[in-house]
């Protein structure tokens, strides 16, 4: 899951560009980048407290997953048949049987549309809710959530499994970056997290070293409390110590602590286990988690790839995620947003593949007060574009933030003082949260 290459030659594994854990030391603001400004004209009532963002890297075919066109011509239709779900009138791909049994838990967005057909640009657009600009890097959904919701003492606010990728914090700065796990979890095992795992070091040793630092870090005397940089570093020293000592932090990453009945909701592959880990992390106080399931860049051999590999994995992991969140009582307070960077060409190419196609795609939204069991938006008869008004990535991001009680029109200031709204153009979709 963590290692796949897209057709443009970009390996999306370990885009190691890491920021820091967020939300700590709120009283400590080195550079007060951000200011409240006009939030006129929008009120948010969302009460969700955490979010999971599932990235379908490579861009999944909408026509073969959640937006089937059984009546389209042979050139377009594809090989898969629709099946009914537990929601009346809602049908999707036959290779997603488990999701069909919990279709009431999520909403399907069809006719989602934009114009950026390159992987990186599409990923940036979907992952920030703002069309990329050359002059300004926008923060990812996770960085904004980390900034707005803050972190608990023992755990980071924003975790990415295994990595978040390129420039996750944009103009917000490293402070709001993700904590990358670096790897996907394995079934029934604790995860060793870089910097948190105590390899061959006992807690006694951690304590002893902490005392040593205290003894020798005295050069600045009282000035160390007055200076912003020094006092900030001191505070981070304390937090790091707390995290390293924390049983809670370690156990949050330990899948062996899950009950058998909970584990049974999932498959055993990396994506399923990542989903299970996400439920555990949310349970323990993490605010935003990025999960990755790649391999959707099916220029060749689309149908076999989907049928044999991608769809079964997605089906097991996502259905497990929805069911487990519900079973843990977390679904109502956790927004789940599932999306690729674009859809794929409605017309099947000569290599039985489909190519990049941002004009029509799908996304899923669930939990956190989002009304599930419905289809929003529609693509045209051949899946070539939105039938009526398109749903934009901006709209989805605005909906997502609203569900979390974050006003998407809230204004931040970039380091150069330019005022920018969290989502510049989107409007929350009323049928989902209204």
């Amino acid at each position: 899951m963590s290692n796949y290459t897209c057709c443009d030659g970009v390996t999306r594994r370990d885009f190691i560009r890491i920021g820091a854990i967020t939300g700590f030391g709120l009283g400590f603001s080195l550079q007060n980048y951000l200011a409240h400004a006009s939030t006129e004209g929008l009120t948010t009532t969302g009460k969700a407290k955490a979010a999971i963002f599932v990235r379908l890297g490579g861009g999944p075919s909408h026509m073969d997953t959640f937006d089937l066109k059984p009546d389209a011509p042979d050139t377009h239709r594809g090989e898969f048949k629709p099946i009914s779900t537990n929601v009346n009138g809602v049908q999707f791909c036959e290779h997603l049987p488990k999701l069909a049994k919990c279709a009431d838990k999520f909403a399907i967005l069809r006719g989602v549309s934009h114009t950026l057909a390159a992987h990186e640009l599409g990923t940036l657009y979907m992952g920030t809710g703002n069309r990329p600009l050359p002059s300004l890097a926008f923060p990812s959904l996770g960085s904004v959530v980390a900034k707005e919701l803050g972190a608990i003492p023992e755990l980071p606010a924003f975790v990415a499994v295994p990595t978040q990728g390129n420039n996750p914090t944009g103009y917000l700065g490293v402070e709001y970056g993700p904590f990358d796990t670096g790897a996907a979890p394995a079934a029934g095992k604790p995860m060793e997290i870089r910097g948190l795992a105590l390899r061959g070091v006992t807690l006694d040793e951690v304590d002893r070293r902490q005392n040593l630092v205290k003894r020798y870090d005295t050069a600045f005397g009282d000035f160390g409390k007055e200076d912003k940089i020094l006092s900030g570093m001191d505070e981070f020293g304390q937090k790091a110590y707390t995290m390293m000592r924390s049983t809670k932090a370690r156990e949050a990453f330990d899948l062996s602590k899950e009950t058998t009945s909970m584990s049974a909701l999932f498959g055993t592959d990396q994506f399923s286990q990542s989903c299970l880990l996400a439920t555990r992390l949310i349970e323990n106080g993490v605010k935003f988690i990025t999960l990755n399931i790649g391999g959707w860049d099916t220029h060749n051999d689309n149908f076999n790839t989907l049928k044999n590999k991608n769809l079964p994995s997605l089906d097991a992991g996502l259905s497990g995620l929805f069911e487990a969140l519900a079973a843990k009582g977390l679904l109502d307070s956790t927004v789940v947003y599932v999306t690729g960077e674009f859809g794929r060409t409605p017309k099947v190419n000569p290599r039985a593949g489909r190519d990049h196609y941002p004009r029509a795609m799908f996304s899923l939204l669930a939990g956190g007060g989002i009304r599930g069991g419905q289809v929003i938006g529609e693509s045209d008869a051949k899946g070539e574009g939105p039938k009526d008004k398109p749903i934009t990535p901006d709209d989805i991001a605005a909906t997502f933030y609203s569900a979390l009680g974050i006003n998407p029109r809230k204004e931040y200031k970039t380091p150069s003082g330019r005022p920018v709204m969290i989502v510049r153009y989107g409007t929350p979709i009323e049928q989902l949260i209204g």
Partner: protein
Amino acid sequence: MSNFLPSIFPGMKTPLALILALFPIAALANALKAPAPEPDKILQTAAARWGNVTKAEAPSFRRHVVPLMSRLGCSGRECHGAFSGQGGFQLSLFGYDFEKDHRAITADKEHEIRVELQDPRSSLILAKPALDGEKHKGKKVIEKGSWEYNLMLKWIQEGAKSDVVETGEFARLELFPKELVFKKAGEAIQLKVLAHWKDGTIEDVTQLTRFRTNDESVALVNNSGLVTSKEKGDTHIVAFYDNGVEPVPVMLPVSTGKFPVVKTRTKVDELVLEKLRKVGIVPSDVATDAEFLRRASLDVTGTLPAPAEIEAFLADKTPSKRAQKIDELLARPAYAAWWTTKLCDFTGNSARMINNNLNGIGNLRSKMSRQWYDWIYKRVAENQPYDQLAAGIILATSRTSLDQTYKDYAEEMGTYFRKDHPADFTERANMPYFWQRTNVQKPEEKSLAFAHSFLGVRIECAQCHKHPFDQWTKTDFEQFQAFFTSLTQGNKAVPKAEVQPDEVSFNSLTKELKEKVAAELAGKVLDTKKNNEQQAIQREIGRRLDAGELVPWPELYARTGAPVKAGPKNQAQGGSRVITPKILGGEEVMLQQYNDPREPLMAWLRDKDNPYFAKAFVNRLWASYFSRGIVEPADDLNLANAPVNAPLLDYLASGFIAHSYDVKWLHREILNSDTYQRSWKTNATNKLDEKNFSHAVIRRLPAEVAFDAITMATTSSERVATFATDIADRAIGPIGNGADRAGGGGGKNADGYALGIFGKPTRETNCDCERTTDPTLLQTIYTRNDPTFLARIDTANRNAWIDEIRKSIERPSAKSADSLRQNIERATQKMAALPTPEKPSAEDGEAMEAYQRKVKQQEDTAGEIKTRLEQMKKELAEMEKPRPPFDPGAALRQVFLRTVSRLPTDAELAQAQADLAAARSPIEGIRDLLWAMLNTREFMVNH
């Protein structure tokens, strides 16, 4: 006035007039020294002129109506200046698009008639702002019958005309008093603003001006220009009128008693002290020798001082030892490496962004990014004058001379990328990659990148609207952008008539390449994944590059001829018009006279009165040393963002130019000042000072410097000695540059993860703020518990200093030396006993082959044994070396020298000895202390 311009550009028509016009800022400075105009020649305030509507004159749209709407906030971002307007009424943001605003106010649309010439009082534009609540969302902003109301009314009564042409050009703003020095908090002083127009008119526009304070904690200013003092300190109040932006210094001195005598050693000290005296801030003392050495080494060379160097420096009694050390530091390779990295920041060297257009061959980009670094490195090491270095980037074209053919160019490129003995890219006269980035393609992107890198100016605001803090208008931006329109990357088309039939061109190479690949693939079954045509082309290009053969390189060149047309956006508004390039704040330029439109730009940069070029570099350099520019942010020179010490910036910039852009002169001028060498320890008056350079500011080490400092503190003594001279694996140098990964720096020996979390910039946007030195939690976790960090203080690490300590503590046993000797003996015997295979007769082909195989095998075995033997002999020699006994005191001192670059105090040494005695073993004790010192703030900051 310099007269080199005409000699370089003989075609330029009126260089003197042009240059004079280019530098309004200099003119303005002179004007400020002029006496105030006589009172009876000044047109009175707006309140006086429109207080009584019956006697009032007709106001001017440009001079009065638009400024009034701007001051009332109508054209602000939250009101009608918003991009979508407000309530269906849209004004240009910050009000400078007179034509558009006039249309928005007067053009009659259904339901949107804002001006009633028949019944002026019922005009929406007048009635609305006088309403409150539901009827005007922006609340009531004017009172009926007030002078503001009367002004608008009178304008409508007189026909609501625009008079932009008639008013002529605005010249400058003048503020009184010229400087506001308060005596106590709460005191208030009224500002007066005069507008000077080029037609000679002078008006009191105090009531038509917008005001802003640059620091609300120091002084507040209200709508009418009344300034109120708040807390002690200094800042600027800025006045905005038309496109005039004028700051005035304001301060409440921190202390008022007798200012102590402070010796000033250099001109820099004098200028800094002059300002400090004014604001009553007493500077700190000069730092200790150890602090100076650590600070200067980190700042100049991005490298900690080596332990032996520290001890020698502390023992040195020469009075001029600091100046000598500065010269020494500036001569080290690490100086060139670190400052090249900085120049790569300023110029945006990002492997991810370099666009080679060669079918997306990815690793080429890393190589090109590295070439970018190397090219600058060579020039920094040689101390090439900054203007020449900049010209090599700014004026770059792919072909290195005018008569170079495409084939020659492609061959030249090939030499840089061939696998065996690649040619030295740094010998190239220019470095074109600055213009060959994915994010620097469109003319507007080029102008933004150029302005940021070489002018320290952010003009992106003016792309869409009048710059809120500077004089730039949208038109200025469009005209500036016109310089870059003809700069292109790709296939330089040659007129058909000039094409020779056999000539090698981009097209011919592309065609030949495609045909070759197609021929190779013909008949093969394309199993899509592997034999995909694209991939086959990539493979072929890769092969040719390795072999140094020709590939179709795209080229960077300036199109000549075609005048610059307005973009479609402008065509929609004003029809197709030709945009004449205009230098920022200067005059229009006739490009036909130049081979390349960048030539007049470069000439402008090199003029000694250029307001930006030298200042931008001086300011960035200063900011690197003081963690804050004289203008801050350092890459944001704008009129409203006044320098905290203008004479200081002027002195350094003019000195830099006078010394022919000698970068090391600039370094020395700063480094040798007491101002740079002051302690971080503050006194009662400068405790809160963050911007007047009265004491050293504590800052976290930059990413690459921190990474290298950790390496140096933990690595072998042998490596420590060469750390500042052998820079091949340094993060501050080549390893931190040229990685094809954002935030990475990856490379073979550096850790992209660590560099990322410590804030290494991706260099993808036009902002120096990409490099951050904010501390974060993840950084702390890294130095406490990251596996790669811990490995550095693990005895299993052969290159670690801690392993040296282990060896000095653990004496090798006689037994292990004996067994090693036996092994050597055995291996030597085995080597001698290797049989010689019998050579068969030449006719027997099969036997001959078998024989050759055997010989090969034999040789391999012999090689292996030989290597092992050498290794064992080395180990034995190491064991037999006489060793000094382990000296705990010396080891503890080393830990302090390696990390905090000073000797421990007596108390610290006693404590360390006690901790060492309590440790489970001496090695663990030393390692724990090393770990602890690496985790002190004293290690992680420059102080």
